[in-house]
């Protein structure tokens, strides 16, 4: 199976090509499109499970050169993609070394990528199934599934790539698919705007990413994660407030992560992205793509961990994002927008976890979040479907009667995201909170914990609000018909909510079960209970142990996971050396914090229930009382306005100003020089005409005048010539003779 992993991304690609190229031409039936699109994902999922099995039970990295496919394995598994020739390392300790800029198209199969591949294919498959029902009858059915498959291909590349470049290809590719799918209803202005915004904002993140990749190459001379991890072990730890090379690399990567994973300041695209069809929101904007940033930070933890400053920045940004997004989520009325802000908030948790060194916790939260957030989105999709494309929660209410399955499954998701024991969200969120509280990477973890703790309460509150407005309370959809038409525009008949078809409810049930059980994998209490942590331990570099390499850790991994005896000691040791949490079993404080967070979740839920079910008049009252806070939250802290409206205006003003400069000034120079030339040509033309030419003409005129005289003389008659001769003779005679005569006369007169 491990030799076949290259098929895992290729199959969705084939599915994409099939549906995209033939879908319209052959007018494929929905059934054909579906069979291909879901079939390839199913096979990919099975292959992933096979790879998982083999990696865990029979694969021994110690016997292999590298834990991934390389170009030595040959096409189509892997090959040299971009041979770029010699390049000098210009940064870091390797400065001066020359290496070939050689990028392999190769896959890295290890604990981390297997987890991600599992999430992507498993959740992805069920979302595909859901979409077959949700998109039924849509004009662009084939196009939708083609894009979904393309997304799967790109996402799998992202998580399977064994070097920064392949990851980046996937990174950009999922961005493209996100663009295509957000803009799926391209006739809607809102969707078109949102898709462009998503892409451009992500591009801002990519700016950092590209530079970081160039920097990694200039530092290490390679882009393979494996080699970079080994080489980076030689670099000293950069302490707090120290901002050296590793910090810069980490910063670049993190800028990329803030774009893709919707963190402050680049989170603004994600809520808008809800303009896409709901399965897309579930797959791309909740379960998989937006967690790519967390994955990337974990994948490159060997760089992040070298810089305490950047770790702190990651944690701070995550914490702040979690908090701010939660505050915004409280006041939104569009069901998908609430979920979107909740996603941003949960992603913030993940980054907070990564920042305090709990990479495993972060990935664990990615894992559980993928299930319950996909579930919530699909549930909301089912609601929207049942409500005939109504998304405004104030026009719902009391739906549990009409959509029983959706309701029951959503309930699981709701409990999971609120962090109620024993649902999935509890374990992952709690691990992050505990690790944040007890972090030793930098001081003051408890402050972050307090913020995270409050956010947990808010999460419970707004999620309960969502449930309350949607499923409980009074039925508001009938009476609000008239209003609905005013603002909504497109006409739909009298709303009679209905349960969704089986193709949509089955995925809901599967994911609901997942939302309950997947958390048990990461039972708190150290390596003994926490299978998830045990599994991922080898991926996380231990910076305090030299020469800590991912590879060495990988050697120890299978023993740790498959053989029971050394597992405890091996993993325990490394946990201890981590310097975060040296513990066996649950310590008293951890237990206390757990109880506290369940308590605040319960509190938030109760408050939500009071506000939106028991006494629906309360929200208005409190909104009025807390007017400034309410407006701030409702207007999303004005960040969107600042960036998207004012920022874009400023940008356009700059463009237009430059265009003026270009057309007036730069081009003016060219036209000016043409004008000067023409002016001078006019001047010289004038000079030519009135001075030079005049002189020439004057010469001609004089000549002509002279010739006129001469012509009149030269008559050709001999009599005239004789006459002239005689006259001439006479003149000459006078001339010569006259002096003589005059002298003679003088002589005679005696004067």
């Amino acid at each position: 199976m491990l030799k076949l992993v290259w098929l895992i991304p290729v199959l969705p690609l084939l599915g994409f090509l099939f549906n995209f190229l033939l879908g319209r031409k052959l007018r494929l039936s929905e059934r054909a499109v579906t069979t291909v699109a879901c079939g390839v994902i199913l096979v990919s999922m099975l292959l992933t499970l096979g790879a998982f099995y083999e990696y865990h039970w029979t694969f021994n990295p110690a016997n292999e050169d590298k834990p991934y496919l390389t170009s030595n394995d040959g096409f189509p598994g892997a090959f040299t993609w971009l041979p770029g020739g010699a390049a000098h390392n210009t940064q870091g300790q390797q400065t001066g070394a020359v290496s070939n800029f050689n990028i392999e198209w190769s896959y890295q199969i290890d604990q981390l990528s297997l987890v991600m591949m599992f999430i992507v294919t498993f959740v992805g498959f069920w979302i595909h199934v859901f979409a077959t029902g949700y998109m039924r009858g849509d004009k662009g059915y084939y196009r939708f599934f083609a894009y979904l498959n393309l997304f799967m291909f790109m996402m799998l590349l992202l998580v399977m790539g064994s070097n920064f470049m392949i990851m980046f290809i996937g990174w950009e590719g999922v961005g493209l698919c996100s663009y295509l799918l957000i803009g799926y209803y391209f006739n809607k202005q809102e969707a078109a705007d949102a898709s462009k915004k998503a892409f451009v904002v992500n591009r801002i993140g990519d700016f950092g990413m590209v530079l970081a990749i160039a920097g990694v190459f200039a530092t290490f001379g390679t882009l393979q994660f494996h080699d970079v991890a080994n080489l980076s072990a030689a670099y000293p730890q950069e302490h707090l407030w120290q901002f050296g090379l590793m910090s810069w690399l980490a910063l670049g990567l993190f800028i990329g992560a803030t774009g893709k994973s919707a963190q402050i300041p680049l989170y603004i695209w994600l809520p808008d992205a809800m303009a896409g069809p709901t399965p897309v929101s579930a797959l791309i904007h909740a379960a998989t793509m937006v967690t790519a940033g967390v994955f990337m930070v974990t994948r490159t933890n060997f760089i992040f961990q070298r810089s305490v400053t950047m770790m702190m920045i990651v944690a701070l940004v995550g914490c702040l994002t979690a908090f701010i997004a939660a505050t915004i989520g409280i006041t939104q009325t569009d069901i998908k927008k609430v979920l979107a802000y909740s996603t941003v908030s949960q992603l913030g948790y993940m980054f907070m976890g990564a920042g305090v060194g709990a990479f495993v916790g972060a990935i664990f939260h990615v894992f559980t979040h993928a299930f319950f957030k996909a579930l919530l989105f699909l549930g909301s999709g089912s609601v929207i479907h049942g409500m005939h494309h109504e998304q405004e929660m104030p026009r719902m209410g009391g739906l549990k009667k009409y959509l029983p399955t959706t309701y029951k499954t959503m309930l699981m998701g709701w409990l999971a995201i609120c962090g109620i024991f024993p649902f999935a969200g509890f374990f992952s969120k709690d691990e992050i909170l505990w690790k944040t509280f007890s972090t030793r990477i930098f001081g003051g973890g408890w402050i972050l914990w307090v913020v995270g703790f409050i956010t947990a309460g808010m999460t419970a509150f707004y999620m309960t609000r969502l449930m309350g407005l949607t499923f409980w309370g009074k039925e508001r959809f009938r009476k609000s018909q008239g209003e609905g038409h005013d603002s909504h525009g497109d006409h739909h008949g009298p709303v009679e909510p209905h349960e969704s078809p089986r193709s949509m409810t089955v995925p809901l049930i599967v994911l609901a079960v997942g939302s309950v059980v997947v958390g048990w994998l990461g039972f708190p209490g150290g390596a003994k209970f926490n299978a998830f942590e045990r599994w991922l331990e080898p991926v996380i570099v231990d910076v305090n142990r030299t020469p800590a390499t991912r590879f060495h850790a990988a050697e120890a991994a299978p023993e740790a996971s498959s053989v029971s005896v050394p597992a405890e000691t091996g993993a325990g040791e490394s946990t201890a050396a981590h310097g975060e949490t040296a513990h066996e079993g649950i310590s008293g404080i951890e237990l206390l914090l757990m109880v506290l967070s369940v308590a605040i979740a319960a509190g938030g839920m109760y408050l939500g229930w009071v506000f939106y079910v028991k006494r629906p008049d309360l929200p208005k009252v409190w909104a009025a009382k807390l007017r400034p806070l309410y407006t701030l939250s409702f207007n999303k802290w004005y960040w969107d306005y600042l960036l998207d409206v004012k920022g874009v205006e400023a940008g356009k003003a700059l463009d237009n100003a430059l265009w003026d400069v270009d057309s007036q000034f730069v081009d003016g120079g060219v036209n000016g020089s043409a004008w000067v030339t023409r002016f001078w040509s006019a001047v010289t033309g004038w000079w030519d005409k009135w001075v030079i030419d005049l002189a020439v003409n004057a010469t001609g005129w004089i000549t002509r005048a002279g010739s006129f005289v001469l012509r009149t003389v030269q008559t050709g008659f001999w009599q005239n010539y004789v006459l002239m001769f005689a006259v001439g003779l006479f003149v000459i005679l006078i001339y010569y003779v006259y002096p003589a005569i005059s002298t003679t006369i003088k002589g005679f007169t005696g004067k």
Partner: protein
Amino acid sequence: MPGRIQIFGIGILSWVTWLPAVGAIVLLFFNRAKNNSIRGFANMWIVLCFLVSVPLVTGLGGGRPGYDRAYGGLQFIEDHDWIPLIGARYQLGVDGLALVLVMLTTLLGVLSIICSWAYIREKGREKEYYIMMLLLQSGMLGAFVSADLFLFFIFWEVMLVPMYFLIGIWGGKNRLYSAIKFFLYTLVGSVVMLLAVLKLFFIFPDVVKAQRPAVEATARQIASSSIADPERRGQVNEGMLNLALDAMKRADGIDPQTKQPLPSGYAHSSFNITAMTAIGPHIKTVFGLGLVIWLFIGFGLSFAIKVPMFPFHTWLPDAHYDAPTAGSVILAGVLLKMGTYGFMRFSLPIFPDAATDSRVRTWMVTLAIIGIIYGALVAMAQKDVKKLVAYSSVSHLGFVMLGLFAFNPNGINGAVMQMINHGISTGALFMLAGILYERRHTYEISEFGGLASVMPTFATIFLIVTLSSLGLPLMNNFIGEFLTIRGAFEARVSWGAFAAVGIILGAAYMLWLYQRVFFGQVTNKANEGLKDLDAREAWQFAPLIFLIFWIGIYPKPLLSYIEPQTNVVVAQVQPDYFKNTTQRPQVAEEQQK
């Protein structure tokens, strides 16, 4: 084994160069009224011209191999007497760089003629139009294949003329202004270049005499540094070296063929480009740095106008705006590459001392970076499709210049990739804009909107090209942009950072354009009944789209053509770059496997 193909005793490069011109002459004898046969002939002939260029890559069988990448350097060399009195010879030859550009030219030639099928039927004067197109083709190909500076200069000038007429006769409403602007602007550069060429010609014998051994060593090094195959390391490209050595013999006043002194009146100098490159590093020791910089400026100004670099770019949007579609395709696809090709072929290797001079380099890089960012920002302010694409060219060509002046293999490889990719993507964009124009007779963006529902195939193709243009991975432009950024980063981190800003802006203006044209509802009544692409219109994009993906997904073959010439340039401008390299040209190693 260097490539060497003759057809009926005439070298293949002569065929490739002159065949379009022959077609133009044949067209002269067509009856002006028989438009259909004229059009048919021209379309057929240009395809024939393309087919004739294919053996350059594939070989022709029977001991007539195509271009040997592992061997590198100039191949298919032809060398004949031409004007002995001034030392100009008819010397042709292509290296990997020129070869790739020749192929691009012949391909875009075909596409540009095919895509003007409907347009020119409407505009009229078909006979003259096709004659001009074919002459243009000959001019451009000649410039790429010339191994003699004088011959190059002739072609360089010749290709201006048909372009002038193409814009001036078949162009848009402001065509005369644009045509004259284009012609004069380029001509200004050419004149300066001519002076520099002549100066180079006159100092050639002096440098050779003063620095004989050093010059010969450099020539040998050039002829061997292009050999990419490690097994043949130390060998030289004989044909290339002989051209240079012959030129030096002529500088001594000896005819290399007969070994006799040259007849009196014959110039004791040469225009051979390899020989010029060989004296390049030694001009400074004989005549001082000042002259080198002046010569660099002489060549550089001409090329900078052609590229066009900021602030010499304003002729471009006008020329594009008013040119017919085919003219724009050729202009963006090939003519602009003349400038960057010139830098890569002449300015950098012949005047390394000037290029590496910190003042010159800082200026060039600064202008390149300004071009990248400024071009992108101004593109965003444009109100019509063609000008937007034209300004995006300024931005993309800025990348090329930045990569060239990074002076390292990644940067230069990236620059050349970018040249080709820009030709493909922008060529396709202009063809797409042309289709819009044929439908609606306007390029105004605000006239469109919601076209994706009316013209789905068109929208799909446009999207692919847009994505390629904004540098999405697995498409062609990404390779060029990334290598360029990587190279610039290696040269100086801040250069890489500035260049990377370009990729954000690139996404912004292209996607905004796409959104305004294709997304939303069809608001303009005139757009409601637009018909989607017909078979000819759709299939003419097939080769370009194939190339977009092929280069993006598997760039290795293309890089292996480019790399040898890159190494020559790097070795010339940074002689000790490869000093501590143990495994330099690995392209060839890959080939061996």
